[in-house]
């Protein structure tokens, strides 16, 4: 199996001295290309911090992080932003679509920051919307869409830059059960297409959808033996 992400001894410490908090205490993790991984853990366990580091939103205090064969720990914020733009697609619990922009413009955003020309951008954004079944909603604003449609729009935005990894943070948390299942089915299709997915959730019923689940407690990933049991 080809490796997409490889974490070794990742720590993250917030604050300094006596007030410091160790959010991650030496995490080792390997995610292969095409994996569909669920990250579970109680709140305060460090799963959000892990998510942020994996998603290049934050840098680890120590340790090594190889993304697609490239060591990224210690990158400047600027380089992280560029890399994030190319390699990571985010999906949030509350969708985080820009309310003032049409769905199409929302989906175009990553390409815009990547410096893609207008014509190509339009084309790719339309393709992404088609993939999630929202081609006819391109001109609508987020507040004119249902929750499920919004999340599918957000998925289109995450997909549009053809990222190496899609990171979803409680993607069904704000949706009713039926809609949530539809979103997870969409994830399943993406996974079948070879897309690497990492999903953070606290809901075991959702985690089982993933091919693998890891549990994180007190800043550490539970040993492999318990991985399957999760």
């Amino acid at each position, binding site marked *: 199996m080809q490796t997409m992400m490889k974490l070794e001894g990742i720590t993250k410490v917030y604050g300094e001295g006596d007030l410091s908090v160790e959010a991650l205490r030496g995490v080792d993790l390997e995610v292969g290309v095409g994996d569909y991984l669920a990250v579970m853990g109680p709140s305060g366990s460090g799963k959000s911090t892990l998510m942020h580091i994996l998603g290049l939103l*934050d840098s680890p205090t120590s340790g090594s992080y190889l993304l697609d064969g490239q060591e990224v720990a210690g990158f400047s914020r600027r380089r992280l932003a560029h890399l994030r*733009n190319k390699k990571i697609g985010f999906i949030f619990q509350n969708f985080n679509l820009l309310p003032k922009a049409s769905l199409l413009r929302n989906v175009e*955003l990553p390409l815009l920051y990547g410096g893609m020309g207008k014509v190509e951008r339009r084309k790719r954004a339309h393709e992404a919307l088609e993939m999630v079944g929202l081609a006819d909603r391109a001109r609508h604003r987020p507040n004119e869409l249902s929750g499920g449609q919004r999340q599918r729009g957000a998925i289109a*935005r995450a997909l549009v830059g053809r990222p190496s990894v899609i990171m979803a943070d409680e993607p069904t948390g704000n949706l009713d059960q039926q809609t949530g299942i539809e979103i997870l089915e969409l994830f399943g299709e993406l996974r079948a297409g070879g897309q690497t997915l990492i999903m953070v959730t606290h809901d075991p019923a959702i985690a089982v959808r993933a091919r693998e689940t890891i549990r994180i407690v007190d800043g550490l990933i539970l040993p492999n033996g318990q991985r399957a049991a999760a």
Partner: protein
Amino acid sequence: MNPTQFLREGFVEIREHLGRALLQTLGVILGVASVVATLGMTASMDARRDQYFLESGGTLLMGVYNQPPAQLEMSARQRAKTGLKLSDAAAIRDTIDGMDLVVAEIARSLQVRAGATEERFRITAIEPEFMQMRELTMGSGRYITAHDMETAAAVVVLGSTRARQLFGTADPVGKALNINGKAYTVVGVTAKKIFFWQRSDDYNAHEWLNRLIVVPITSYMKRHQEAGAERIDELNLRLRSPEVHEESRDALEMLLRSRHGIEDFGVWDRQERLEQGAQEDMIYNVTFMACGVIALLVGGIVITNIMLASFTERMREVGVRKALGATGWQVFVQFLIEAIVVTVCGGAAGLALGIVFTFGIMSVMQMDMTITASMVIVSVASAAVVGFFFGLYPAVRASRLDPVVALRYE
């Protein structure tokens, strides 16, 4: 991300928060409006003054009049010697190159009789170049000529108002006119000259030219003064060009002082008045501009404040943009351009408001309004500068936001 995209984001931001944007840019609107109104009013009034000068002989006119020294005790003999003389005019013509036209003038109230009308009128005795100097044109007949001067011809040229007063609607050319008992013949009537400072005004600034009764100065001296009397009232002068103004004026005063022995004359000078006027304009402009600049500064502070106040509201937006790969620089440019778009729109609104204001004042004063390029440039540029400087701080803050913190913000 190219600039047009940022511009578009800026306009979207304004459209979405019209009330906030308006509040934000109110100071800029008022500041720019007051600057524009100041520029507009001075420009409009200057334009009118320049127009008047243009239509009445240009800015190169100068004049010398008698002004006996006040304190000096003078004998009757001395007093008889002082004052401007016809020979001064000749001396200026001969020695001062910078003087293009020199016209000696005497003006007196005399008894005038034409047909059945008899009344005291002011008679103006001049030299032929007066026509050129005051940009006169003929309504009928001809003006005073050099030949009239040489022969001291008994001819008279009337202004249009006087002509109508003395002869009614009939053409007076060829008709006889009697001045203090001496017979003259009317040879011409000048065309009516009109200049209104204000629209629908009843004061014609050129009317005095329409009321002139003009005779050759030699004829006047021969018929209405005792032999040998050489004194004149005034010298009308015109400079060759603005460049020779200073040297010619100095030469003029030196020449007359040396010829008269004392300073017994005064000088009026349009060029000088224009320079003084420009200086007064400057003081006026600077004062009002300072008020405008203060308003702009206050406007700028308001912009910074409102941008910072709306910051928390936009934190999540910044977080999302960063999560999608926006660099700090891209966020910085977006916020800065947004601020500049807001202020430049405010500047444009201020320009419009200033023009409306100027137009209002000018219509009350019944004057035409002049819009200059500087009004447009100053308003837009100053607004952009305010947007730039006062948008810097919020833009820097937005660009430095940690995406993790920004995303977590509820």
